[in-house]
């Protein structure tokens, strides 16, 4: 038991922090919001050159083979600098392919690591429910093809991704996953306009013919693949969210130390100090929970409940922190020309992605209340 980052983890974290601070400036973030692609290709290239896209991918896929906690720390740092790159979608899809993909799909990961292939993933249907049940998109077998019909929503980075890891309901076979070429005929993306001004899109499937070679894993493994995809996605989204929120809190603390009212820095008033203390506690809590979830995922231990705990807590608390940072900034934080809003808008969006507080709490409640036997904190729960 040693729940804080060790020396090597701290080193990677600090290196990434310096890199993103220098390379992902607010000016770059603002420019990306205006760019149709919504991301910085130059920054993406630099991240790839550092080998970070393969940080937690196996060595036989061209990765560094480091534990998943490292990918989490990387996303915390990217989130901290609200880096405009499709890191989350690419890493999530790549992790699933590394674990469940065919030899050909795993071979694609070398291109991913080089920064030559961006990936996205698609889980949610038109209702927006976050669930591995894959509602809203069906696949019908037709000879050597599966034909997809329906919709996927909130697919981040769809426009720039070469392949999209799609969950669907296979007729008669339950949940399945396919790695779909995003240029396939009948597939149409429509950009959303989100609070984050990011690259989320709705994707409609109109008789999209996917070759069977594009299916991921055996049909019988569909549910497990979907579970992994949802777990990786929600956990790493929490990392990104916690990283952004910590920076947001730091802005507020810095500002409180400088801004004067009533003859002293506002940060000297106990009301502001106590708010800042609660903000720090909230960010720390989110971080501790997601570190545990990622560590368990990496160890191959059941982790869905730990992931839900982390995302539910972060979804609730990170927006509290960001809103409080706005409060501490008074009027100026509300202004477009002031950078704080760049963080606030993303924290709002990210707290809503990959499962809402309500949905994740439902998972936790079911594990607590539907499974037999007494519960004890510290003893893992089993999903219902």
């Amino acid at each position, binding site marked *: *038991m*040693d*729940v*804080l*980052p*060790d020396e090597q*983890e701290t080193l990677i974290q600090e290196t990434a922090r310096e890199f993103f601070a220098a390379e992902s400036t607010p000016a770059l973030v603002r420019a990306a919001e205006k760019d149709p692609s919504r991301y910085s290709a130059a920054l993406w290239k630099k991240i790839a050159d550092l080998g970070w896209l393969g940080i937690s991918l196996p060595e036989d896929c061209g990765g560094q083979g480091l534990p998943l*906690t490292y990918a989490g720390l990387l996303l915390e740092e990217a989130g901290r600098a609200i880096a405009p790159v499709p890191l989350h979608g690419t890493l999530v899809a790549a992790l699933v392919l590394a674990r469940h993909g065919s030899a050909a799909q795993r071979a694609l990961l070398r291109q991913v690591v080089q920064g030559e292939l961006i990936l996205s993933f698609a889980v949610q249907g038109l209702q927006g429910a976050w669930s591995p049940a894959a509602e809203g998109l069906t696949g019908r077998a037709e000879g050597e093809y599966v034909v997809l019909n329906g919709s996927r929503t909130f697919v981040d980075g769809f426009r720039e991704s070469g392949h999209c890891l799609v969950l669907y309901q296979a007729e008669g076979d339950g949940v399945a996953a396919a790695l779909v070429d995003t240029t396939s005929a009948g597939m149409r993306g429509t950009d959303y306009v989100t609070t984050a001004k990011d690259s989320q899109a709705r994707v409609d499937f109109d008789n999209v013919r996917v070759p069977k070679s594009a299916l991921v894993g055996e049909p019988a493994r569909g549910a497990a693949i979907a579970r992994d995809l949802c777990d990786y996605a929600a956990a790493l989204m929490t990392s990104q969210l916690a990283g952004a929120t910590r920076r947001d809190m730091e802005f507020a*603390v810095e500002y*409180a*130390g400088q801004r004067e009212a009533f*003859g*002293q*820095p506002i*940060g*000297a*008033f*106990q009301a*502001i*100090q*106590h708010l*800042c*203390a*609660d903000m*720090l*506690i909230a960010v*720390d*809590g989110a971080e*501790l*929970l997601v*570190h*545990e979830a990622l*560590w*368990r995922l990496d160890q191959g231990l059941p982790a869905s409940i730990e992931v839900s*705990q982390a995302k*539910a*807590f972060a979804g*609730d608390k990170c927006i509290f922190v960001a809103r409080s940072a706005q409060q501490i900034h008074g009027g100026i934080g509300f202004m477009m020309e002031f950078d704080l809003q760049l963080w606030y808008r993303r924290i709002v969006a990210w707290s809503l992605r990959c499962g809402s507080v*309500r949905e994740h*709490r*439902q998972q*936790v*409640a*079911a594990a*607590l*209340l539907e499974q*037999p036997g*007494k*519960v*004890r*904190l*510290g003893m893992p729960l089993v999903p219902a």
Partner: protein
Amino acid sequence: MDFTFSEEEEALRDEVQAFIKDNFTEEVLADLTTGKRGRGFGPKAAPIFRKIAERGWNAIVWPKAYGGQGGSRITQFLVEEEFYRAAQVVIGGGGTGTPAVLASGTEAQKQHYVPAAIRREIIFCQGYSEPHCGTDLAGVRCRATRTGEGDDIHYVVNGQKIYTTNAQVATHIFLLVRTDPESRRHAGLSILLVPMDTPGITVRPLLTVQNEPGGPAGTTYGEERTNEVFFDNVKVPASCLLGEEGDGWAVSQRGLNLDRVGAWRYLISVKRDEDIVNWLKSGDERAAPLKDDAAVRDKVAELWIEGQVCRLMTMRSMTIEQRGQAFNYEGAAEKVWAPEHGVRTTEAIGQMLGPHAQLLNGSPDNVQDGLYAHNLLSAFQSTVNHGSVQVMRDQIARKGLGLPKPRK
């Protein structure tokens, strides 16, 4: 990062659980419960404590030179957790006395106090609070005057302490006194380790809201009494001084990191999270409709997740200790989050149970012998003692975040 206990630690957990099963009979549990409530441990409890000490379980983390095991803080936590869960007893010699003796005592003092504390022949109570000051302890007025010469150098103590828990059973009081009458605030304070049987000490009970009826076993905030302690020309040998005279503030802080964190604080804050879930699943006919209520389910999950944060913050504190590092703000953060979580859970359970949550031990129709009602009576206590959540937040903001002190 590593989020599990080692195999050896899990084996030890099994051993401790087996010990508890074999030794914590109904009679022993009853004795432990009344002891925990402040009435003193009954005759059945004493042999249990002896057996625990024989196994070294209450001194895993203390140095071998003074009768400990020289083991890990994490292992100590694990064992303490099992005993607190089983009977709400704190088995670690922890608390205020022994860690401070280890941190600031002379070699002779360490030899005198630590092994005896492990055997439970020495039990400290904590003499900090006074009627006019608790949170702001630098205002301590209790006086100790140094007099005599040669072999008879001693202090004469006059004054009063209040809320001195366990003073009625303690062998010694860990006493914060003012040794320099001209001093103000943190300067001029000293720590004396005073035997409670010294002439001139009077202990007067102060009953708490948990006094009548007493809470059932499992009440986590169930102290029925504490005390006032009066000092009337109490003559204390100079050898009872811990650390340097006038350095009492630093001595009281040193080695006391673990006073605010650890198994006990963790469990009093989270035990309710488990209790309510287990009750909802118990088949009690009042629980059945609640279990399927969407609002209850959302709340229970929210609280459970908060409880996980309590656990992880405790593990973070243990990690820092185990690494031999010092807390910056982490102990204070835990001391805000966990007690306030305990309050939120306790009050939320009250609303779930509705009118039944008022019913105390012995009342008809109560739920689990009134457990939840008794917790409602004092869960908030944990947000006041050992550093109130207000001053803990001050520490987080100033030490952890570097925010400025207010201008006067």
